[in-house]
């Protein structure tokens, strides 16, 4: 699944990174705990969150995330969008809330991150 497909599924608005929408998304990780993302997210994952602070961008950068989806129509402040732009992290905003957003992506074939190989 590519980012451009995810935009369609989530009826999402692209906040930045329009030139990066051909990126392939392997897994998704939805949560509002940055530490949890740092602990469990695989690389090249799509981060889904309702937080809009700068830690989301830094966490995405550290984890080599393919992009970030903000749920519930949320949008970060301009300087945070700018930071994502500088780090080549596409940002999307979907009107759907967390559960529906993750559900839609899952039924469309996006897999979750695995905590270990047995899951």
């Amino acid at each position, binding site marked *: 699944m590519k980012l451009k497909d995810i935009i369609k599924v989530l009826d999402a608005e692209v906040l930045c990174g329009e030139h990066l929408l051909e990126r392939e998304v392997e897994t998704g990780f939805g949560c*509002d*705990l*940055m*530490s*949890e993302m*740092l*602990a469990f997210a695989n*690389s090249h994952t799509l981060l889904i*969150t309702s*937080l809009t*602070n*700068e*830690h*989301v*961008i*830094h*966490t995405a*950068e*550290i*984890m*080599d995330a393919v992009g970030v989806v903000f749920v519930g129509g949320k949008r970060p402040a301009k300087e945070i969008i700018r930071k994502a732009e500088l*780090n080549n992290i596409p940002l999307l905003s979907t009107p759907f809330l967390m559960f529906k957003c993750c559900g839609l992506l899952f039924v469309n074939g996006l897999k979750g991150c695995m905590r270990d190989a047995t899951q």
Partner: protein
Amino acid sequence: MYEGRYSMNRPDKESESKPQLKLEFKIGEKDFSVAGDAASKVKKTLQQLGLKPEAVRNIAIIVYEAVMNVIIHANYGQLKVIIVPDKVVVLTEDTGMGIPDIELAMKEGYSTAPLEIREMGFGAGMGLPNIKQCSHKLNIKSQVGVGTVLEAIVYLSSKN
């Protein structure tokens, strides 16, 4: 691996005469942006040095969580990342409240962080367990009412 790229190096009295690179950051109270900025700068530097992605990511996570801990729990402190050919040492030293029970603090889910930190996406009792998981060696020395020294080491084998 990354030998021959020591143009950024400078001699250091503390070193054992090995070539090394040291990154230093000051950490102020409630200076929340320094954690992500430091992790980002360390990641970029390690990538430039040619370290493998897994080692880079582990070290960046250690830096992020360790600096967040200083910001959340201490008055001020500093971060040093020391890169020598066979390992990377992440060191934070702070002046602050200290950790009364390190074993308890290492437990996943145990946290004394205030609500405002949790709203930021941190302070859920994952910091120290994350650091432990990402490092090969972790030493924590703490004195209540004085401060804490954390040293995490990631060894760089030929694999990473």
